[in-house]
C-alpha cells in the first residue's frame, strides 16, 4: 500500500508544483520515485518528527500541499501537539501519512504497534482520518485527499496487502458497500477488511447474509452515511485493527447513541489488556479475535 501511495503522489505532483513530501528518515525503497522527480520538494527531516510537523505547517501556510511520512506512532503520538496546534488549529493542508497502522509490525513489539493513532487523530479539529484497506481504497481516498485542503491523517498498513476489489471503486459517498444491509452487519475500517470478507463468504455458503460495509474515511462528513445505515439495520459489528478505546468502533457508537433508537453496536478491535502481545499480524489478529474466526464466534453467538 505504501508503494501505491507514492505512485499516486508522484502522479499528482507531476501536475502541481506545490506538493512537498517530508519524511522522518523513513521510506527506504518506497519514496525514491518522488525524490527522483521532485528533488526540490522533498526533505528528509531526520529523526525529528516534531520539527517535521512544524515545518510542514510553515510550508502549508505558504500555499503548499504537504505530505509527511513516518511510522504510525512516530507520525502521531510523538508530535501530537504539533499536529494539534500547528496543523489542525490553523486548518492547514497537511496530510500526515503513517505506515504500520495497526499490527503489521507486530513482531517488532509495542513501540511499533499503531493501535492508538485513530483515537488521537480523529478527535482533533478539522481533521479527516483515511484508513484504506488496499491499494484501490487507497486510490479512492487519495482522490479525496487531493481535494481536501484541511488536515488529514492517512493510515497505511505496510505493504503486500491483497487486492480486495476487482475494479476501481465508484462509490459516490465515503462508505463502500460490499454486501447489502442485513440483520447482522459488519462495518470494517482498514486493511482488516480482508477478514470481514472471508467471514461474510463463510456465512454466504451457509445461506446466511451478513451485511458488509467498508468505512475508510472517519470524519464529520461520513457521519450521515453511517447514521443512515444504523437507522436502517439492527446489529452492527465494528471491525478495526486498533484499540477499541476511541477508535472506529467508538466513532460508530457515538453516532448510534445520537439516534432516537440506537442500533446495537458490537466493537471488535485490539483488546486493552492485550496491547503488549507480540507476534505477526495474523497471529495477533487471532489473539485479539479480529480475524475471520473471531468474527464467526461473535456472529454465531448472535445467531443463537
Amino acid at each position: 500500500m505504501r508503494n501505491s501511495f507514492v505512485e499516486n503522489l508522484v502522479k499528482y505532483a507531476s501536475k502541481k508544483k506545490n506538493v512537498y513530501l517530508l519524511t522522518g528518515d523513513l521510506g527506504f525503497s518506497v519514496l525514491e520515485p518522488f525524490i527522483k522527480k521532485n528533488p526540490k520538494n522533498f526533505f528528509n527531516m531526520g529523526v525529528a518528527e516534531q520539527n517535521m510537523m512544524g515545518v510542514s505547517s510553515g510550508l502549508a501556510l505558504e500555499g503548499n500541499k504537504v505530505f509527511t511520512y513516518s511510522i504510525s506512532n512516530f507520525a502521531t503520538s510523538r508530535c501530537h501537539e504539533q499536529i494539534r496546534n500547528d496543523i489542525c488549529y490553523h486548518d492547514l493542508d497537511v496530510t500526515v501519512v503513517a505506515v504500520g497502522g495497526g499490527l503489521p509490525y507486530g513482531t517488532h513489539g509495542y513501540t511499533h504497534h499503531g493501535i492508538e493513532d485513530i483515537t488521537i487523530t480523529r478527535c482533533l479539529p478539522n481533521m479527516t482520518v483515511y484508513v484504506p484497506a488496499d491499494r484501490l481504497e487507497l486510490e479512492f481516498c487519495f482522490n479525496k485527499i487531493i481535494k481536501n485542503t484541511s488536515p488529514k491523517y492517512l493510515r497505511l498498513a505496510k505493504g503486500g496487502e491483497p487486492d480486495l476489489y476487482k475494479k476501481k471503486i465508484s462509490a459516490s459517498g465515503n462508505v463502500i458497500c460490499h454486501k447489502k444491509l442485513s440483520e447482522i452487519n459488519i462495518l470494517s475500517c482498514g486493511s482488516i477488511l480482508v477478514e470481514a470478507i472471508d467471514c461474510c463468504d463463510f456465512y454466504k455458503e451457509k445461506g446466511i447474509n451478513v451485511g458488509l460495509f467498508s468505512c475508510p474515511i472517519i470524519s464529520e462528513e461520513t457521519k450521515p452515511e453511517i447514521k443512515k445505515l444504523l437507522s436502517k439495520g439492527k446489529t452492527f459489528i465494528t471491525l478495526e485493527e486498533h484499540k477499541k478505546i476511541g477508535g472506529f468502533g467508538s466513532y460508530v457508537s457515538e453516532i448510534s447513541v445520537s439516534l432516537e433508537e440506537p442500533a446495537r453496536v458490537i466493537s471488535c478491535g485490539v483488546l486493552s489488556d492485550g496491547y503488549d502481545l507480540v507476534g505477526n499480524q495474523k497471529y495477533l489478529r487471532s489473539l485479539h479475535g479480529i480475524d475471520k474466526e473471531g468474527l464467526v464466534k461473535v456472529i454465531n453467538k448472535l445467531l443463537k
Partner: protein
Amino acid sequence: MVSKSFGRILLEDVVRMTNVSQTSHVGGCLSCLDIVNVLFNNVINIDSKKPKSKNRDRFILSKGHTSAVIYSALANKGFFPVKWLRTFFENGTKLPGHIDHKVPGVEFSTGSLGHGLSVGLGMAMSMRNKKIKSKVYVLLSDGEMNSGSTVEAIMFAGHHKINNLICIVDKNQFQALGKTDDIINLNPLSKKWESFGWNAYDIDGHNTSEIKTALLSAKKNSQKPSVLVCNTVKGKGLKDFEGRLMSHYRPPSDDQLNDFMEGLELIR
C-alpha cells in the same frame, strides 16, 4: 504636542493591558519590548493594507505568552483598532492571552513553547524555493531553548543553510520556575547556535542601535541563517518587576501602574 515614540506607545500599552486584565507575563513582554520596537518600526516589511502580500516579511512570536507587546505593535501599525487592546484577555475577546492567528497581522498562533521556529523554518524553505526575497523573523524565549523541537529546527536550518531565516532569542535569563542558568544552563548560547551553522550576534537587547545594526546585518547575510542572542532584563522598565521571577506571574497593581505612568509623566 510631541507625538510619542513607537517604543513608548508599546511600553504604555503593555503595562496598561496587563494591569487592566490583571494577567501575567508582563515581565517577558518588557524584556523583548525594545526588540519588538526596532523590528516593527525599522526593519520588518509589513503593510496593514496588504497583510497577505507575497513579498511581506513574516514574523512569528514563538514565546506566545507575551502577546500583549505584539498586539500593541500590530494595532499601532494599523492592523486592527487600538481600542481592541482594552479587551485583552476578556471574555469573548478578539485578543486571547496567547497570540492567535485570527488576530489581523498575526501569522501564527503559539502558546506552547518550542513550536515557532519550526514553522518559521517551513515558511522560509518555501519562500526560498519560490525565490521570494523576504525574510522570516522568529522571536523565541531563552526558556524554550530547552525544547527538543527548537533544537531540531536549529540543526535542520543550519544544515540546509536556510539564510532567509532570522531568529531572535530574548535572553532574559528566566523561565517559569527560576533562572535559566540554574534549570538547564544554556551558556554559551550564541556559540551553541554557531556550532550548528548559524551566524550569531550576541548583543544588548535593550540597546536599540545595537539591535538595529544586528538585524540589518543579519538581513544581508546570504550564507547562513542568523540568530540574535539578545541579553535582556525581565520586567525592564517597571519598578519592582525588573530582574524578578514574579514578573512572569504578577500583573502591575493600580498603584504600580500609576507610579509607572507618573514616571513617564503621562498622567493626564
